[in-house]
């Protein structure tokens, strides 16, 4: 093997020698194209997914209905639908598709962030127990009335934050935690909060509410209504945008916390901010849909492998791809076995478990 280190050393008096044109412009352009393409795919998915279901509706009907409701009725290509169909699209399917998109985006971005700040490729809001803590918070607020009338979402947020705090506490601040230790600690936190949730369900719920909650805990978007969607949208979109501000800091975490510090990143502040922000968007997602697992594992890894591990690309693209994934998972969940509906979390777990095994294998090699 030869090297030009030697030659380079002799050329010392000319530090910026051998300048060549940057070869990465093409690549940058293609990354922008991929993000654009994914966004178009997301819009197409939102419309296409609204078509699936019992009634026979055309894509243009869906587009027209949506345009009419957002005040752009003049440019709608098709005449108005009967009131019942209009309501089916606008009041039932469309909010549900939007909610799937928001939850998918939140979970995927959470996963990408958690993987970077714990430096662990197996991190996921579900596997680390953040979702589990958020569920406990939600159940405690609703069934036990803890907190004196705070909302389910606030309860979920506090629960998620508590679970995250407990995780970091058990990791001793996590400065040198190995991936194995992070995952095992996540299992511990997750199981602990799952047990607390079960306990609350058993002691306070009647059979009916217990059944409803158990279904919700498996992760389902069946409860989507406009008022809930608006609230969730504000939190998740604001949270994801805020997280984008930390993209370059997350890149600097590649070789660990000391390395990030030496690159000028205020590691403690960044970690606290990201902990709060990921708890916030995870909690919003859990409050809206229960604990849907593995989206945060599947999506960021796929984007890293296929496009780029750098967070300026990874974070926005994970958001879009996570949204698309959950839209189609939920569409499948509500239509594949009609009249029965599957919890979306069951499907993501079916997809996610093999993905987890693959990541584990990659990690070992």
């Amino acid at each position: 093997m030869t090297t030009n280190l030697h030659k380079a050393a002799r050329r010392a008096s000319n530090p910026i020698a051998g300048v060549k044109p940057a070869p990465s412009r093409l690549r940058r352009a293609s990354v922008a194209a991929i993000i654009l393409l994914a966004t178009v795919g997301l819009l197409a998915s939102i419309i296409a997914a609204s078509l699936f279901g019992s009634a026979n509706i055309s894509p243009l009907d869906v587009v027209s209905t949506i345009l009419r409701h957002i005040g752009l009725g003049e440019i709608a290509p098709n005449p108005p639908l009967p009131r019942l169909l209009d309501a089916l699209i606008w009041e039932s399917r469309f909010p549900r598709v939007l909610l799937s998109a928001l939850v998918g985006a939140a979970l995927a971005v959470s996963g990408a962030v958690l993987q970077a700040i714990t430096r662990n490729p197996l991190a996921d809001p579900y596997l680390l127990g953040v979702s589990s803590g958020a569920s406990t918070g939600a159940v405690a607020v609703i069934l036990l009335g803890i907190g004196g009338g705070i909302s389910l979402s606030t309860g979920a947020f506090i629960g998620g934050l508590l679970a995250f705090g407990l995780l970091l506490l058990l990791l001793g601040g996590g400065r040198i935690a190995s991936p194995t230790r992070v995952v095992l600690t996540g299992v511990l936190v997750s199981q602990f909060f799952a047990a607390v949730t079960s306990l609350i369900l058993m002691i306070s719920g009647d059979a009916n509410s217990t059944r409803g909650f158990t279904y919700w805990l498996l992760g389902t978007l069946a409860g989507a209504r406009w008022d809930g969607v608006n609230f969730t949208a504000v939190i998740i979109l604001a949270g994801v945008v805020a997280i984008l501000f930390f993209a370059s800091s997350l890149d600097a975490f590649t070789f660990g916390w000391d390395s990030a510090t030496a690159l000028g990143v205020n590691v403690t502040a960044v970690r606290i901010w990201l902990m709060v922000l990921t708890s916030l968007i995870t909690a919003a997602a859990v409050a809206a849909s229960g604990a849907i697992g593995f989206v945060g594992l599947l999506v960021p890894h796929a984007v890293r492998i296929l496009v780029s591990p750098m967070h300026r690309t990874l974070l926005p693209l994970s958001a879009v791809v996570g949204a698309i994934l959950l839209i189609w998972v939920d569409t499948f969940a509500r239509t594949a076995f009609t009249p029965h509906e599957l919890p979306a979390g069951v499907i993501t777990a079916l997809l996610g478990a093999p993905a987890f095994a693959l990541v584990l294998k990659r990690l070992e090699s």
Partner: protein
Amino acid sequence: MGRINATEISWSVKGHQLLDNIEMAAHDGKVVGLLGPNGSGKSTLLRLLAGLRRPDTGTVRYDDTSLRDLSRRVLARRLAVVEQDVTAHNHVSVRQVVELGRTPFRGRFDALTEHDQRIIDAALERVGITDKQRQSWHTLSGGEKQRAQLARALAQEPREILLDEPTNHLDIRYQLELLELLGSLRVTCVVALHDLNLAARYCHHVVVLDHGQVFAAGTPAAVLTTELIRSVYGVEVLVDREPTAGTLRITYLAATAPRTADATAVAG
């Protein structure tokens, strides 16, 4: 090029004094070797110099500015750190690793400018891994990883670089090339080293640590004597000059008993 000055540095963890009243200086453009056996405090001192840990007492100054008055970001624009045995948690390419060196110069949403790209190209070229830049970091050999880390450090356009045993895992050839490169950089370097011959040959100044204290400091020829090496490392050596180039040469003869009993052990 910048000056590093550490005065009265002490640091302890849970009652163990790891560094005790360290005084050391690195002058403009010089290569300073930090020597000493395992556990003597080399890595700890480097971490304190880098501002990664805060000393209990004492001050680290870059030129005339105390580390306490420098923000992380401002410090990172002049000081680069090359750590030992780092691992990446995701599959970054070599070029992306080097791009990280531009972090302290970039705004939150700034793309890399042409200027950044030129500096990255030059850094890759400088350590001789331009042809590997598209490869995944994980596919590199230990020596190539070390060079990629150095390229990342160079992309920070540093005035000072701190390196923790950078010659570990390197073939002899790369060890020599790396240290030769450091000497040619016109950057002030503080390098923790195990190999006394490398230190003798490439360092302008060496600081020998033992049990968290500065045992000796000065030019390699003045410091690396038979007596010092026996008492700090517990090794009998022959120190002479290599006949053709006249560089200092240290030949290891035998391990002696530990330093606490050195007088009797040498007699035996």
